[in-house]
């Protein structure tokens, strides 16, 4: 590639990065820890650079980048699983490996209930829900990312929301008020 073409490609990539990095980072944050999300963002754009000529124009660009980011995060999860297994093995040998950076996540009860309910779904249904409600992608783009037909996405989302609702109901429905029981002879 000539220097001029190289410079132009770089300039276009910088524009792409500036336009989409926040949304791709948000996608990664929603599925990962903050530290892992930064790594995933970096890997996603490194891949995007290498595949720059294949990146479709808007409005398909974001869905394409989400597709790469999703695969990067899946690989991170596999690596985390391998790390956990190694940790268990080391503990079995009487060696205590150092703790990683602690992650403190504060959630209100509704968010915690939602997270718990979401995790009961299959990974594919979880991803569909997140693409639909958090990434706010049109169904046709969700279908492309997930390699499914639009009808299948609609039907699967319908089922997944129903299932989420059933999991959430017993947790979030307000319990009937019951007054505190006064103890006999409790005095003042």
């Amino acid at each position, binding site marked *: 590639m000539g220097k001029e073409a190289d410079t132009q490609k770089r300039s276009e990539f910088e524009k792409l990065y500036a336009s989409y990095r926040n949304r791709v980072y948000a996608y990664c944050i929603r599925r990962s820890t903050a530290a892992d999300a930064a790594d995933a963002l*970096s*890997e996603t754009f490194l*891949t995007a650079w*290498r595949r720059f000529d294949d990146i479709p124009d808007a409005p398909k660009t974001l869905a394409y980048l989400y597709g790469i980011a999703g695969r990067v995060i899946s690989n991170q999860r596999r690596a985390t699983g391998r790390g956990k297994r190694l940790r268990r093995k080391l503990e079995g040998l009487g060696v205590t490996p150092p703790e990683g950076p602690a992650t403190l996540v504060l959630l209100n009860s509704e968010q915690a209930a939602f997270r718990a309910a979401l995790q009961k779904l299959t990974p594919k249904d979880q991803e569909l829900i997140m693409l639909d409600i958090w990434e706010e992608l049109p169904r046709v783009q969700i279908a492309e990312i997930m390699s499914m037909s639009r009808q299948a996405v609609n039907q699967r989302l319908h089922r997944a*929301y129903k299932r989420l609702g059933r999991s959430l109901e017993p947790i979030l429905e307000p319990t009937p008020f019951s007054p505190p029981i006064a103890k006999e002879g409790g005095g003042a």
Partner: protein
Amino acid sequence: MTIDQVRAIARRANPAPDPDALELIDPLPPFDREGSGIMSTTQIEEIESPTPSGPKRAWLAAAVAVAVLAFGAIAIYMNGYQSDPFAGETPAVAQTMRWVAALDDGNPEAAVDLMGTDDWDRDDMASTVAFLALSARGYAAEDCVETPGDGHILVTCASLVIDDPIMEATDLTSLPFAMEYADGLVAIADLGDRSVALRAFSSYAREFETGRFDQVCNSLILQGPSWMTGHVLTADCALLYADVADDVAAWVIAGRPTP
């Protein structure tokens, strides 16, 4: 709880509701800092300098690390987009596994496309496949082998594991599964007998979901491919099946009490 209520809760639970408000540490190396950077096509000549030292040595280490990271990311990408998970199987077994994967994905169109159309009533087949794909939560075929025959190929799988609470409640967690191919097209697909589970659904829905059952499932009222279980095999009926599956399972386990 309605779907709109669930969607509202999901929206409120978004851990990053405003991407533009996120504090982002720029994770990419600068593109063109003092002639280095991952995007430069000339950096390889610089890397090949025989005795890098000082800042250049540090830069070399960083460039190699970035290159490894980039190749790793590309490998993930290529693996995700281009590899066929059934590449090691024989063509007929791979085709069978792809069909089951389409059911598992809840993607009846893909499953129908894999079957061909020669000897099938396409509408009936598509409807039945849609019922299969959308009624259960997942499918997995295990231990499939291919047996060539006279003018056909038979693929038999030791089991077809179906994630379906009604099947579990009726002690039908997996079934034998076979597909026969003739001229490269599916001639017979035998998914085993799950009629016990289908009848349980039918009985429950007639009793407890009468309105919806009559509207989308009742084979006495509706035109559509049906079986001896009293309901049509359609996508709409599958959605009712999936909606009430947990309730039907609980009802079966409780001994099918009458209201």
